[in-house]
């Protein structure tokens, strides 16, 4: 149990997926204009990454390892993730229209999000079991949500600031991300 908590905290705060591993930068910069949409995106990412880490680790453990085909994991994982996102979208549409209307817009944005593939590959690299993989995926996704929501909060306030025209838009967002990365590096003593 203690191990699992350490994995989750490590993935969410210490090795934050955006701020220290630079994965999933596109949605982090693109969908962080408003707190509400950022939170929606975060929820969709939590949903998809958790399911995909479960699925990819099951495939790795029960199909690729016994057939000695682990070298194919990049190809298999990217296809599985692309199919999974499609599938999740279809299931949500049928089963839970309210959840679909909340998350549906964000799902297409996740298909080739490098964070999803990154987590699946990291699980293999660290030779995590199935439970550990799911916890790692969940932790990573929560870390993503925390950072994107904080970023959106800062950007909402930034809107009214007087910023020089060259720095307006993307540059100031990147500077903010850098400052957040400094703040998050304070967590490195946690483990």
């Amino acid at each position, binding site marked *: 149990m203690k191990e699992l908590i350490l994995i989750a905290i490590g993935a969410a705060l210490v090795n934050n997926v955006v*701020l*220290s*591993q*630079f*994965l*999933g*930068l*596109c949605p982090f*910069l*693109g969908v962080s204009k408003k707190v509400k949409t950022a939170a929606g995106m975060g929820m969709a990412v939590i949903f998809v990454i958790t399911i995909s880490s479960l699925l990819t680790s099951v495939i790795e453990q029960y199909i690729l390892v016994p057939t000695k085909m682990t*070298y*194919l994991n*990049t*190809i298999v994982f*990217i*296809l599985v993730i*692309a199919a999974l996102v*499609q599938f999740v979208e279809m299931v949500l549409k049928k089963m839970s229209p309210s959840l679909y209307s909340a998350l549906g817009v964000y799902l*297409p*944005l996740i*298909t*080739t*999000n*490098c964070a999803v*593939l*990154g987590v699946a*590959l*990291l699980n293999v*690299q660290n030779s995590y079991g199935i439970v550990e993989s799911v916890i790692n995926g969940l932790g990573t996704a929560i870390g993503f949500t925390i950072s994107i929501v904080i970023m959106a909060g800062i950007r909402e306030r930034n809107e009214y600031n007087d910023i020089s*025209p*060259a*720095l*307006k*838009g*993307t*540059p*100031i967002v*990147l*500077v903010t*991300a*850098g*400052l957040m*990365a*400094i703040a998050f*590096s304070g967590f490195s003593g946690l483990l």
Partner: protein
Amino acid sequence: MNRCTERLYNGLIKENPTFVMMLGMCPTLAVTSSLQNGFGMGMTTMVVLTASNFIISMLRKVIPDKVRMPAFIVIVASFVTIVQFLLEAYLPSLNASLGIYIPLIVVNCIILGRAEAYASKNPVLPSIFDGIGMGLGFTFGLSCLGFFRELVGSGTVLSHRIIPDEYCIKIIGLAPGAFFVLAVLVALQNKIRISNGKKPKELKCIADCSACQKQCEERGKEFIGNSKKEEA
């Protein structure tokens, strides 16, 4: 041959992926902590890009339009796997320092972007040169950033000490520094664009990726719909 040199020029200068198009930002930020890593990542991407452009351009009339995105992804992923093995065998130290970012070349916007925008529409030879040009442009961009960050962050160039340790700005070499360096780069670009009377630019990556994903998504839906119809 003229067309080929035009492609090289286009990739290196006119549509440089790092400085002009702002594509593939994840590896740009992640691996440029030193010149060696930046250069290695750039070269690896170039090999994958050239090979995938070559195959995709050869198969452009064979791959059905509806399943082209999944087909491209499989081709790119295969080459990434091959390159990863070659690196593991011949350059294990580079492979260790780039780590997870090698398999993540699969989801690099540049590669799918070039496949979609150029290789799937043009003959083989120009496509190969397009891949080489774009790859060299990416390598050039990553090497510049890596050179700068290594020099300022740890005072070395290719592990040779240039600046004494006590005068280095350590943060530039660490994760936050990557964001700062990129911010300065975009700001400079905006400054030039504004003084030329153009609009400052947004990160292209966002628009491109989501557009390509949306397309991918729609194609996927059509594909699934069609196969269902066939089954029925």
